[in-house]
C-alpha cells in the first residue's frame, strides 16, 4: 500500500513540476546573465521534480522488494519505469548543459505518460510466470531505455522545429532567446538516436532470446509486436544511415525523430 502512496505523491510532484515549468516557459522576463538570478518558477519546478523523483524511486523500490522481480511486467509498470528514466535523463541534461528550459518539455512528457496509466494502477495482477525471467527483464529495461533516448530525440526535434520557426518568422521572442541553438538541438537528436539505437537492437535480441527460452522459438510467427518493433528498428536504422551518408540532418532529422517517436508510442500503446 505504501508504494501507492508514494506513487500518488510522485504524480502530485510531477504535476506541480510540470505546471511550474509551463509557467517558466511563458515567463516573458528577460534573462539577465549578469545577475544570474534563477526565476522562481524554475527554482520550484526543479525542487518539485526532484521531490517527485525521490518518491518515484521509493515507490519503484518498494514494488521491486515486494514483488521480488523487476516490476516491468505490464503497461503501467513499464510506463512508470519510462517516466522515471525520463526524469533521470532530464537531470542528466540539466547538469550537463544547464538548460533548464528543457524541463518544460521533458517533464510534461514524463507526467503525461505516468498519469495516463495511473488509472490502471492497482495491485499486482496474477503474473504470467514466463515474465519472471532474466531475459525478459533485460529485454524490457533495454527497450524502455531505448525509447527514453528516442523521446529525447523527439523533444529535441520538437524544440528544433519551434526554434526554426522563430528564426524563419523573425519572431525573436524571449522564448527564442532561452532555447538552445539549432546546431545543439541537432546534435542532441543525433546523440540520442545513436544512443537509443543499440539499446533497441539489444532489446529486440534479448526479446527474441526470451521468446526462444520460454516458447522455443526466436521469432513468433504471428507476433505483430515483434514485427512492428523490427519495423521501428529499420526506421531508426534508415534515419542513422540517412544522417551519416545522405545528409539527413537539421530540419529533416528533427521531423524524422518526431515521426519515429510517434511510431514507437503507437506500438507501445496498442500492443503492450
Amino acid at each position: 500500500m505504501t508504494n501507492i502512496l508514494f506513487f500518488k505523491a510522485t504524480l502530485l510532484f510531477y504535476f506541480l513540476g510540470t505546471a511550474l515549468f509551463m509557467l517558466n516557459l511563458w515567463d516573458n522576463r528577460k534573462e539577465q546573465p549578469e545577475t544570474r538570478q534563477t526565476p522562481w518558477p524554475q527554482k520550484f519546478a526543479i525542487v518539485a521534480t526532484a521531490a517527485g523523483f525521490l518518491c518515484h524511486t521509493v515507490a519503484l523500490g518498494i514494488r521491486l522488494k515486494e514483488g521480488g522481480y523487476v516490476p516491468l511486467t505490464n503497461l503501467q509498470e513499464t510506463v512508470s519505469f519510462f517516466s522515471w528514466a525520463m526524469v533521470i535523463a532530464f537531470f542528466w541534461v540539466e547538469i550537463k548543459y544547464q538548460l533548464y528550459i528543457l524541463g518544460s518539455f521533458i517533464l510534461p512528457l514524463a507526467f503525461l505518460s505516468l498519469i495516463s496509466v495511473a488509472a490502471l494502477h492497482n495491485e499486482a495482477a496474477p503474473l504470467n510466470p514466463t515474465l519472471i525471467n532474466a531475459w525478459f527483464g533485460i529485454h524490457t529495461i533495454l527497450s524502455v531505455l531505448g525509447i527514453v533516448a528516442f523521446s529525447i530525440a523527439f523533444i529535441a526535434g520538437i524544440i528544433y522545429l519551434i526554434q526554426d520557426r522563430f528564426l524563419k518568422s523573425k519572431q525573436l521572442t524571449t522564448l527564442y532567446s532561452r532555447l538552445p541553438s539549432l546546431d545543439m538541438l541537432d546534435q542532441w537528436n543525433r546523440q540520442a538516436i545513436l544512443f537509443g539505437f543499440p539499446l533497441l537492437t539489444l532489446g529486440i535480441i534479448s526479446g527474441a532470446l526470451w521468446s526462444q527460452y520460454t516458447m522455443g522459438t526466436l521469432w513468433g510467427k504471428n507476433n505483430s509486436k515483434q514485427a512492428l518493433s523490427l519495423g521501428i528498428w529499420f526506421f531508426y536504422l534508415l534515419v542513422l544511415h540517412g544522417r551519416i551518408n545522405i545528409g539527413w540532418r537539421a530540419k529533416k532529422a528533427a521531423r524524422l525523430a518526431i515521426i519515429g517517436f510517434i511510431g514507437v508510442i503507437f506500438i507501445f500503446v496498442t500492443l503492450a
Partner: protein
Amino acid sequence: MNIVIVGLNHRTASVDIRERLSISDSNMGDALYRLTSDPIIDEGLILSTCNRVEVCAVVKDTHLGFEVIKNFLATSNPSLTLEAITPSLYIYSSSKAIEHLFRVASSLDSMIVGEPQILGQLKDAFDHAILHKTTGIILNKAFKKAISVAKRVRTETKIAESAVSISFAAVELAKKIFGKLNEKSVLLIGAGEMAELAARHFVGNGVESIAIANRSYERAVALAKTFNGEPIKFDDFESEMVKSDIILCSAGAPHYLITPEAVKKIIALRQNRPIFFIDISVPRNIDPKINDLDNVFLYDIDDLQHSVETNIESRKKEAFKAEEIITEEIISFVKWFKSLDAVPMIVALKGRAESIRQAEMEKMINKLGDLTDVQKQALESLTASIVNKLLHSPLTVLKKEVYSTNGNMILETTRKLFDLEALLDTPETEKKKT
C-alpha cells in the same frame, strides 16, 4: 564665391555607375589636379567610397561650378557620358552643401546609418586634398568642422550604436543557428563598409575562415589581407557558397544575385547543413523567397534592425538629436562662411574705422572744450580723410582680389588684422579656433 557639392550615392546611382566613377587612391592626385585646373574652381576635394562619389568644391560661380564638376565627373571614365550620369547626380550649394557634408561625415547619409567607416574615408579624402594642395581656407575649415561635427554626433547620440548593434545582432542570430562559430566559414559578397564591420564582428567571435568576393578584385585582396581571409573572383561566389555557412551580401547590384533555384542546389550539395544569409544591400540582392527553403535563414537589414533591442522610437529620437547638432553647427559655419564675402567685409571694415573715428572725435571735442563749427568741421574732415586714405588700399585690394585664388585668404586676413569678428557676428567659438 560659393561652396558646392556634386555627387551620387547608393540611393541615387547603381553600383555600376558608382564603380565606374570611383577613384582609387593612386589616381586621386591626378583627379584632384584635373578638377582644380579649371579657373572656376578655387578649392576641390573628392570623396570616393564604395557607396558614394562626391566632389566638394569652392567655386567662383555656383552654376558654372556645377557644370564644370558635372563635366569633370562625366569625363573621368571614357565609358560614361554626361547624359548617363546626370539623373544620378545630386547638387547642393552654400548651406545645403554644408548640411550634406556634415550629414555624410556623421554617417546619417550612409546605407547603414551610424556606420563608423565613412568618417575615416572622409579624413583620407581630406588628407589627399591637403597633400596635393587643392583645398584652401574654406574647405579646410569645412572639413575640419565636418570631422568635429561627426565626433560630436558620435559622442552625444547613440547613432553609432545602431550600426554596431546590427553586426552584433547578426552574430547573435548566427550563434542561435550554429551554436559555436569557431568551425564556421563566412563569405562576403561585396566588400562595403558595413560588410567590413560585420565581418570584423564575426572574426571577433572566432569564425574559422572568411572569403571575400568583390567586383573589384583589388579591394577583395586588400580586405582579405586585413582579415587573413581569401579573396575570390566575383563570378566564383556561387561555388564558394557551398563551403560557406554564413553569407553576407552587400554587393549593391540592382537585381537579385542569389535565387531560390541556386540556393536549393547549394543546400543539396551541403547535405542540408543550415546556411545563414545576411542581405545588407539596398535594394536587396537576395531573393526573399529563399527564406522558405528548409535550413535556409535569410535576414535583411530591416530584419536585423528590428531584432535589435532599441525600439524604433528611441532610434528616431537619436536621429533627431543628431540632426539638431548638425543644424546648430551649420548655423555657426554659415556665419563664418558669409563673413568671407567681400561686401559685408567692406561694410564691417568701414564701420569699424568709422566707430573708432567717432569715438576719438568725441573725446577730443570734450577735451578741447568750446570749439567753433568751423573748427569742428576741420577736425571732422581731417579725421575722415585720414581714415579714408588709410582704408583706401585695403578696400581696393578687397574689392579687386576677392575673386582671385587668394581671395579667401585675403578676406580671412583682413578679418583678423582688423578684428572684425564681432562686427561680422561670428560666434565666440569660431574666434578661438581661427
